[in-house]
């Protein structure tokens, strides 16, 4: 965990030389790296070529004023995540309120009080770090679009019915693999394996939403809707089996253990939403479809097949994906038998 007082790279934008010196020296004394710009145009040029953690922005400026810079930044996907603190004189309070309403992070009155400066700057930097970490975490598990959607909607915890495909994947006999090698090797194997599998999921518009031991669950078609979610899920599964061949070849070359996986996919209506609390929440799906996918995945071992899907998933596939009917299976605890198909890569 990074400390709240870790230095940041800051941009001070002010047309006034005295204000620029006051702010930038003050921030440098607090350990930050500071660049300055004399007007809005210059500020945007610097923001586009260099990466900044925070901007301190004057409102009254020639060329391009603080409002225009703020609006431009908020509309630019590359810049809108950089927090902006407005700096203004006391009699500009109306303008400041307008800026905060527009989306400025905070404000400071000039001449700036150094204690207030430290507090506001550190709070903004810390908030940005948390957001960056959150985004990085989501990027690991989901596409950029999903990560952005999650951050945009602010993780509202509401649930909804969604038509989606649910995938479960597991490493066969992983417990015995773990017993045969050093713990560090097992963790390394898992991390390398997950990196490859998640790559395949994310490449096919999926989101990994649960990770448990050597298994994981992924969703296709939610939270971002995709009509082709059934095909996406199956293509991801096929990509996973291809990547696993590469993975096993590398393992063999290093005289390390090779693995087999089972993948089960079911499609249909699920209840999707965030579960947890505001502080620790995860996007998840529940319902019969999820249950079915988990059962199908377990069945891969018995059927000696790597990828199994249900009839609903099969109906969403184009002709060039070959499937083989394994007949109907009545899983324990289910009322009706489920027609299972094997996907042959």
């Amino acid at each position, binding site marked *: 965990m990074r400390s709240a007082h870790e230095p940041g790279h800051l941009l001070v934008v002010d047309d006034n030389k005295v204000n620029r*010196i006051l702010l930038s020296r003050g921030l440098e004394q607090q350990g930050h790296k500071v660049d300055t710009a004399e007007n809005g145009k210059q500020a945007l040029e610097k923001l586009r070529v260099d990466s900044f953690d925070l901007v301190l922005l004057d409102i009254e400026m020639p060329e391009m004023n603080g409002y225009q810079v703020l609006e431009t930044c908020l509309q630019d996907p590359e810049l809108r995540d950089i927090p902006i603190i407005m700096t203004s004189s006391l009699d500009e309070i109306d303008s400041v309120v307008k800026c905060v309403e527009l989306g400025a992070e905070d404000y400071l009155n000039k001449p700036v009080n150094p204690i207030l400066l430290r507090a506001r700057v550190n709070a903004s930097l810390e908030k940005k770090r948390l957001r960056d970490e959150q985004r990085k975490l989501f990027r690991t598990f989901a596409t950029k679009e999903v990560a952005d959607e999650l951050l945009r909607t602010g993780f509202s915890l509401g649930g909804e019915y969604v038509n989606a495909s649910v995938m479960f994947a597991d490493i066969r006999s992983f417990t015995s693999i773990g017993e045969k090698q050093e713990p560090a090797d097992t963790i390394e194997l898992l991390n390398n394996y997950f990196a490859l599998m998640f790559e395949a999921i994310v490449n096919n518009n999926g989101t990994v939403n649960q990770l448990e031991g050597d298994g994981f669950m992924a969703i296709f078609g939610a939270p971002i809707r995709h009509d082709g979610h059934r095909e996406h899920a199956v293509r991801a599964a096929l990509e996973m089996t291809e990547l696993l061949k590469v993975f096993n070849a590398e393992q063999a070359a290093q005289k390390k253990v090779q693995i087999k996986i089972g993948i089960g996919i079911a499609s249909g209506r699920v209840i999707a939403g965030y579960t947890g609390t505001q502080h620790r929440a995860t996007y998840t799906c529940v319902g019969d479809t999820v249950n079915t996918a988990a059962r199908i995945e377990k069945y891969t071992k018995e059927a000696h097949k790597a990828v199994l899907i249900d009839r609903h998933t099969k109906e969403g596939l184009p002709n060039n994906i070959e499937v083989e009917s394994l007949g109907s299976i009545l899983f324990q605890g289910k009322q009706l038998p489920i027609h299972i198909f094997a996907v042959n890569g």
Partner: protein
Amino acid sequence: MPLIDQQIFNELKQISGADFINELIDAFLDDAPNMIQNMQIALDTKDVESFRRNAHSLKSNANTFGATELGLLAKELEFMAKENNLDIGNRLEVLKKAFEKASEELKGMRI
């Protein structure tokens, strides 16, 4: 009324640290004549917006150093420009004199 409010100036010195109070004073003495000149040009060309912005900057800096009288004069001119009124009489001349006096005093306060 003293030209420079000692309390405000000392606070500034404390904030900035003795190290760069000289840099700050120099920046002001260097920059303020440009603002005043810009105000004169804006007045001559009837550019209300430029006049207001420069008066605003000068006011802000004057207050930073505790040059209270200069700050008040600049504020009055900023306010008039905001009201679209450039009928300022001899106020710019008065402001120029106030700046000269304040700048003399500031020069003496360099460390």
